[in-house]
């Protein structure tokens, strides 16, 4: 009755475990080049600044208390505000776009997605310089608006928070669109029809069915936009100038201009803590939902 060879192979397969060795290269790399330097920065954040800019290994929590200065708090505040605004605008622009792409005929979806990611093919710095050209007082935008007669005098956008916001939305929109597209594309069309059939109007179909069922994509997109924007450096540096500093610029300033490494390290750690906290909050809510959907 029982074939010995088949039972043997079955026995073997149950003993097979999920192997961990493929992790070794990544773990070694991260230990050497991420965790170790990070620990070093953490240590430095509790040290003191030397007279000529070096690090003096004298314990001091003052770097952290210094952050409570309204000047620095305001920079954090602006970063958080800009990151939230960028995320919100990306969501509002990205959701309809992603919905359109996901519902387009299959052969067109690839073309639309390609158009979304084409900007990545050129350097981010170059693209940001292009925005400087557009937003300048005598730039493309003002010229066009003046010519059309929508404004009488050029408006000042470059080197304001608005320019930073525009640049950030531009730069991170694809990170919002791609996960949203994936979530919407996966959405079962007949579930949407079922809601419509069950007396839901367009508004209810969206908020009661489409929105909750694409929530995982919304959360992923928001994280992918929020996390890099809160620590953005190039965009506020080029488009915001000296007046509108974000945390990323402050860190650069402390490290390279003031040469106060301990304070720069403290600022970095507080930023990191904010991001991790925010992400944890998102993931916690997202995780619960993923569970429900995962049981499908």
């Amino acid at each position, binding site marked *: 009755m029982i074939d010995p060879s088949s039972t043997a192979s079955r026995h073997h397969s149950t003993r097979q475990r999920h192997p961990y060795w493929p992790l070794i290269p990544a773990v070694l790399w991260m230990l050497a080049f991420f965790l170790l330097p990070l620990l070093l920065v953490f240590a430095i954040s509790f040290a003191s600044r030397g007279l000529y800019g070096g690090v003096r290994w004298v314990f001091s929590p003052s770097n952290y208390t210094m952050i409570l200065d309204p000047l620095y708090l305001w920079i954090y505040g602006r970063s958080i505000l800009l990151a939230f605004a960028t995320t919100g605008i990306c969501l509002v622009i990205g959701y309809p776009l992603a919905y359109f792409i996901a519902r387009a005929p299959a052969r067109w979806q690839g073309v639309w997605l390609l158009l979304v990611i084409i900007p990545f093919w050129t350097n981010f710095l170059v693209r940001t310089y292009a925005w400087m050209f557009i937003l300048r007082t005598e730039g493309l935008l003002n010229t066009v608006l003046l010519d059309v007669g929508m404004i009488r005098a050029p408006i000042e956008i470059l080197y304001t928070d608005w320019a930073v916001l525009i640049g950030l939305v531009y730069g991170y929109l694809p990170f919002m669109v791609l996960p949203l597209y994936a979530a919407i594309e996966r959405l079962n069309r007949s579930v949407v029809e079922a809601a419509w*059939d*069950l007396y839901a109007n367009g508004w209810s179909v969206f908020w009661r069915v489409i929105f909750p069922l694409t929530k995982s994509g919304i959360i992923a997109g928001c994280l992918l936009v929020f996390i890099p924007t809160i620590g953005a450096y190039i965009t506020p540096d080029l488009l915001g100038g000296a007046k509108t500093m974000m945390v990323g610029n402050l860190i650069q300033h402390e490290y390279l201009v003031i040469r106060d490494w301990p304070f720069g390290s403290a600022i970095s750690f507080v930023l990191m803590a904010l991001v991790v906290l925010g992400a944890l909050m998102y993931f916690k809510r997202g995780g619960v939902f993923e569970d429900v959907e995962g049981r499908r």
Partner: protein
Amino acid sequence: MGTASVEVRDLVKYHGATLAVDRCSFSVQPGEFFSLIGPSGSGKTTTLRLLAGFEQPDHGEILIEGRSMRSIAPNHRPVNLVFQNYALFPHLTVFKNVAFGLEMRHIARSEVNSRVGAALDMVRLRDKPDRFPSQLSGGEQQRVALARALVNRPAVVLLDEPLGALDQQLRQDMRMELKAIQEQVGLTFICVTHHQEEALTMSDRVAVMDRGRILQIGSPRDMYESPRSVFVANFVGISNQLTGRVDEVNAATCRIHVPGMPSLVARYQASLTVGTPIILTIRPERFVLSRDQHESGLDNRVPARIDKAVYNGSDMHYRLRLTDRVFWTARVVNGGDQKGFTVGESVYVGWNAGDGVALTE
């Protein structure tokens, strides 16, 4: 007679260049279980989607309870669709799924609770209101989908292949249950299926569709006993065929000449004239097989050879070879005591005039 539940007049729908629904007309009475059957691509699902309002007809009219459905969106139609793969809301519990339609119509909370409870009772899911669809079996999901439609007490319940995703045994059980529920609630059901047997057992009336057109509408008995075309005869049950020519036309029967065979007698549908080519169709269970040429008084009798014998439990299936090109299937009830026929054996196939239908086509 009061207003029909559904009145479809001259419905036409194109999908691009293809004619999906071709001048279909039918009406369904209140409380009737009506089925649209046909092979895939016959236009039955499109017809259902036109009734639900997901698609707009290119021509023709749909009236539901006497009201024209022209340019009325699905959420304003008094119909509810039970989707082929149920299309339950995966993020909502069983209770919330069933309550969805009532909530959308702003029915009072207490009434929602009692109606959802009653609907879940009816489909035997009272003990699982807090489950999510993914935690239910296929049969349970199917019943939630049904409850979600019934709870709204629509003028018409539309069902798209309602049992299509269930396994064989469950299909059999659900067929009876679906029919029982329909009779209990007294709502009008319009069901689309490619499964003819399912349609026959559940429906009061059936419409057979092919290539966008309705070929025949009638009771399951009409469809099976008196098909009006070879397509219907083949689609509804199995039918054996023989081509011949009309020899003589009488009041209820006609005499058929088939080269190389004795003269045959059969019923006919449309009026016939002598000399018309016809196709004779006979159901496999109507045959009587015997070894003796002169046994019993059957109207028709032709010689054949047993080509294949399949033991099927409740009955025997025989493949009969009449000529080199004509093969028939006969189904003989397994009475227990008699010994079957063996392959290669010569037999006589007999049947009565009323069991054969002569169709022109």
